[in-house]
């Protein structure tokens, strides 16, 4: 079992509040990812769950038992650190055995578990080596292996891939997902990389400045971001944001006016808008097409990045930046005028406080 419940978790270092009233239920076997910009408190949250930091307020429960006062060693969790934190003076085998020996496990079982983990991670060949003699990827496996042999109720992973090069990161990501499928235990994973979050998570927890901004499945967050921050954080390249105003309201549709006098029609079925409201309109770059239709936006092209399979267009719309990613190769160059169409694109509306407008 690996159910973790956080209730009103607070943590402050001196006068600085790092975590503010965090509530979260993590289900058994779930792969949950904490994501957010650096300094948002995601690592601190992980460390409070681990027991490496004491909470200032709130409750942490593991499988229904309050563990606030339980030390890190006795919470039954295992952690993979960003720097791997392998003991440099011990061989790989000793690294894996250290934690087991500390809980006075019989030697035979220690050996069995190490062998099992080593096979699973394909690190048998270098069990007698020291971490200094391993490559970054190998060290990373050992760090995971050290967690696996403990058979923890939950794995805590603190940016475990950030020290790998790009290629290795992609393959290890896939292996991690496979590992989770095989072990079936709860994993809590911290990263600042939203791609990792999207590819690995059952649920993503987006954090900012010590608060949870939104919790949801990757596609939830992508399709219906709860606020402007989440909208901007999830998805690459970032969502475009245009300033707008409600021009007309009809049943089922709202007409928005942008700065340049363009009019955009949005399906809308709520009551929270009234004519004249100032809004932010979010459009993902991938949803913009190059077309000259009645509703299209006339822009000036600033920069073109031809990536072969797609073309990234940096455009200027009456002083506002607009980014479009269009498939294929386009004959277009900086300085050109172009028409970008958002017809059929899902438009995200955010009110003055950056919250998603209900009904949009």
């Amino acid at each position, binding site marked *: 079992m690996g159910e973790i419940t956080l209730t009103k978790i607070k943590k402050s270092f001196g006068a600085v509040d790092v975590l503010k009233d965090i509530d979260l239920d993590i289900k058994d076997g779930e792969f949950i990812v904490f994501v957010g910009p650096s300094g948002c408190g995601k690592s601190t949250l992980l*460390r409070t769950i*681990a*027991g*490496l930091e004491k909470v200032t307020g709130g409750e942490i429960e593991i499988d229904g038992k309050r563990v606030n006062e339980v*030390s*890190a*060693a*006795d919470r039954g*969790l*295992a*952690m993979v*650190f*960003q*720097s791997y*934190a*392998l*003991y*440099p*003076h011990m061989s790989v085998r000793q690294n894996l055995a*250290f*934690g087991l020996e*500390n*809980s006075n496990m019989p030697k035979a079982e220690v050996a069995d578990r190490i062998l099992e983990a080593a096979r699973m991670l394909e690190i048998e060949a270098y069990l007698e080596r020291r971490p200094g003699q391993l490559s970054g990827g190998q060290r990373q496996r050992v760090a995971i292996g*050290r967690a696996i042999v*403990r058979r923890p109720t939950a794995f805590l992973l603190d940016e475990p891939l950030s020290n790998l090069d790009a290629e290795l990161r992609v393959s290890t990501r896939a292996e991690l997902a496979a590992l989770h499928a095989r072990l079936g235990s709860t994993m809590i994973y911290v990263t600042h990389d939203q791609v990792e979050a999207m590819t690995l998570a059952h649920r993503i927890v987006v954090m900012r400045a010590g608060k949870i901004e939104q919790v949801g499945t990757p596609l939830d967050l992508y399709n219906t971001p709860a606020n402007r921050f989440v909208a901007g954080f999830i998805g690459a390249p970032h969502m475009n944001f245009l300033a707008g105003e409600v021009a007309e309201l009809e049943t089922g549709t709202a007409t928005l006016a942008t700065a340049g006098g363009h009019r955009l029609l949005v399906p809308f079925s709520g009551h929270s808008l009234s004519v004249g409201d100032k809004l932010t309109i979010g459009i993902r770059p991938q949803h913009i097409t190059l077309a000259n239709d009645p509703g299209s936006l006339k822009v000036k092209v600033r920069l073109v990045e031809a990536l072969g399979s797609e073309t990234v267009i940096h455009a200027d719309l009456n002083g506002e930046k607009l980014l479009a990613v269009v498939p294929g190769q386009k004959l277009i160059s900086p300085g050109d005028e172009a028409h970008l169409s958002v017809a059929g694109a899902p438009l995200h509306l955010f009110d003055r406080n950056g919250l998603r407008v209900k009904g949009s």
Partner: protein
Amino acid sequence: MGVASRFILRRRGGKSWHWTDVVTWVWLLGGLIIMFGPAVWLAFSSFKTPAALAEFPPSILPYVTSQATVQGYDKPLQLFEAKMPDGSTKVLAEVRRIGLVAQMVDPKAPGEIVRVNIGDRTPVRSVSFATENYTTPFTQFDFLRYLWNSVFVTVTATLITLIVNSMAAFALSKYEFRGRSLAMLIILATLMVPLSVIMVPLYSIISSLGLFNNLWGVILPTVATPTGVFILRQYMLTIPDELIDAARMDKASEWQIYWRIVLPLTAPALAVLAIFSVVWRWNDFLWPLIVLSRRELYTLQVGLSIYSGELNVQWHFILAMTVVTMIPVVLVFIFLQRFITTGIAGTGLK
């Protein structure tokens, strides 16, 4: 050879000798002689007999004058090479000297006394190492005891220093706690309190603890060196905190973290401190001099100084024991010099 000498004698002015090159080499070679010369001279002297030591001008190598037992004479007689009136030279033994004339005999024909002008004879000498200078102090004086005392003090004090200082350094580098800066300040302040300032009250404390005339009285006040704490703390700060978190997750107790993780990783700094500590404790003088008043408790340094301060100094023994006292330090110098010099250059501490 040509290339090597050109490399060693690299000069500023290329081919010609710039004046700074001359100064450099005069300084370096002069330094070589002045720095090593005295110790080497002492080492050579330590193998001379008392008679040879009293000689002036002194010889560099230890010579002894040859003697022979001649039939008819109780004591061994000294051998001389004498110039005979006929111009030949002969090895003769001197019986006695009267004014400028020496009465000598031929060891092979002891019956006949030969008179030789003392200006016409030179002593027969051979190189011989007076190793009894070394053996006698150990067998007949207490120097073996002193050597043992010195070794005991040095080894014990170093071990305790390493343990106690590393524990403190661990606490000061890896824990956040109230009073940490106060503790640092206190340790820093003790840098300002050398032994010479507190020797009187320290003596009274040692006495009231019953440690006067006790080697532990020499050891204990020296082991909590602020320098040691600083060197180790500085080094421990470079050990990533994540390693300690990892060990905590691995169910290690704090003592285990100290002993199994932090201490092994601090080995290089511990080695530097160990070398320093060995040299310090081996060389300590003033404090042992105060605490130890019974002869059998003296360390080598105290023993040497007491013996050399006696009215009738037996230099042949003193010199030999000085060499013995120098040996560990010379060994440290030869094998660990690089270690120490980089250690000092790095920390500015000694």
